[in-house]
């Protein structure tokens, strides 16, 4: 269990996409998510698809990892497609199944919406595939800096996120240990009625919570002993660097958006 454990879906690598400043990635993806909804004809969709696929290819993330990220949403994509095919009644009747008529408008609409979904998921999962959770945390901390002016606890939020990330594997290991300990005392987690199985989780959760609180208390003391006194006057070891590469990618992305505006109706 130890070695297979990876938080999130990060696939290590040294591609262009990996080396980008995480802030750049988040910004571009954020804009992309909005821009996808502006596409309204074949050409504009093509431009966005090419951009998304090219980023995927340059990231050199093996296809199976990308597909794994898409698995939970395949159903949604197909469902929306069918829904549009059934509901939309525009254009000509293309063919008929039993007594049900499929319109060309429905097919086009279905394709367009499913494509949107597909692109959204592809691009966002590319972020988590090529960026470590801690990089994302740093990027969020850096991008939320302006909110400090309105007393938003940016540093605290980032610290909370990074401590959670650090303790996820620890708590998973602990869950494993407790469930084994309880199993050896006769608790059955795997068989029985749903109600019984839910009840069996209680002796797992209670010790887990108790120990999590104890950990939190000890961690707080250790942090204080090491001189932690909030974000004021703190320096950082991990650095985000905005490089020429980022500039290049931004310029490329501006062209993509311009292309989109020229081609859409």
């Amino acid at each position, binding site marked *: 269990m*130890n*070695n297979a*454990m990876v938080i999130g879906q990060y696939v290590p690598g040294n591609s262009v996409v990996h080396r980008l400043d995480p802030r750049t990635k988040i910004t571009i993806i954020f804009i992309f998510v909005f821009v996808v909804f502006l596409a309204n004809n074949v050409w504009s969709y093509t431009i966005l698809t090419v951009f998304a696929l090219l980023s995927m290819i340059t990231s050199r993330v093996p296809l199976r990892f990308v597909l794994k990220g898409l698995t939970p949403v395949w159903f949604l994509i197909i469902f929306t497609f069918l829904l549009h095919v059934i509901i939309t009644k525009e254009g000509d009747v293309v063919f008929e199944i039993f007594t049900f008529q499929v319109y060309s408008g429905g097919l086009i609409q279905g394709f367009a919406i499913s494509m949107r979904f597909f692109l959204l998921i592809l691009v966002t999962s590319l972020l988590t595939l090529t960026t470590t959770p*801690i990089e994302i945390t740093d990027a969020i901390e850096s991008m939320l800096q302006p909110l400090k002016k309105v007393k938003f606890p940016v540093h605290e939020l980032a610290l909370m996120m*990074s*401590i959670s*990330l*650090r303790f996820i*594997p*620890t708590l998973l*290991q602990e869950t494993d240990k407790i469930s084994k300990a309880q199993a050896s005392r006769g608790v059955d987690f795997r068989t029985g009625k749903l109600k019984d199985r839910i009840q069996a989780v209680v002796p797992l959760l209670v010790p887990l919570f108790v120990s999590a609180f*104890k*950990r939190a208390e*000890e*961690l707080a*003391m*250790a*942090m*204080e*002993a*090491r*001189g*932690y*006194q909030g974000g004021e*006057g*703190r*320096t*950082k*070891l*991990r*650095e985000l660097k905005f490089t020429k590469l980022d500039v290049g990618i931004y310029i490329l992305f501006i062209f993509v958006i311009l292309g989109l505006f020229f081609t859409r109706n």
Partner: protein
Amino acid sequence: MSSNEKLVEFRNVSFRYGAEQPWVLKNCSFEIDREEWVAIIGHNGSGKSTIAKLMNGLLFPQEGEIYVAGKKVQEDTIWDVRKDVGMVFQNPDNQFVGTTVQDDVAFGMENRGFPREEMLQRLDDVLHAVGMVDYRLTEPHRLSGGQKQRIAIASVLAVSPKVLILDEATAMLDPRGRRDIMQTVAHLQANKDVSLLTITHDLQEIVQADRVIVMNEGQVWDESHPRELFSKQDDLLAIGLDVPFIASLAKALKQTGIPITKEPLNHEELLEELWTLHSRT
């Protein structure tokens, strides 16, 4: 302000966790010199961990005064005091803040606003000192307990404290991890000018110390050199401390009439004593 050269000074310190609670420390006084290695032993509840927490202002005494490097420990000096007093706690997991080894070692330096260049330099130095250079980017759940404690020591050393407190730092480790930590600590003490305070209930871990303070029922019960302490076996047993095997063996040998002159601290010393025995008798 303190006038002499003592690094840490407890003057008639008494402490309890609440007004209704029993006293955990009763009128304790002791001192630690610069570059000295002092061990505090005592069984559970003897007040030894409380001493550590008082020393860097995690707790404050109800009576008496504590001085660290000439500064009195109180609300407005704790951040200065914590610069001088580094602490390593018992549980290796619950003091690991960073997501990787280098982030954890940097945590204390980041808190003190070290410039990045200096952080990288010191990071290298302390990881060398504890022998963990190859683990810079390793996540905590891939490290053993002993390795995590070595990182905890490294992160404390990174900010160059004057005293390093190990509060039962080996209690949750296996024998191998324990030996590694004790070696690391002995090595550090020999090379760096840092005072050491090791708090333990294991008499094995005090043999390398310069001085031992024995705590019992919240009071300083004895202060002596490890060697002298080992000769007071019956008293130690009476206050609930386990005497190391070598010490009890030496005592048993003496009782059967073998003249052992020097109280042995480890099995090499006892061996030396025994094989030179014949030439003396």
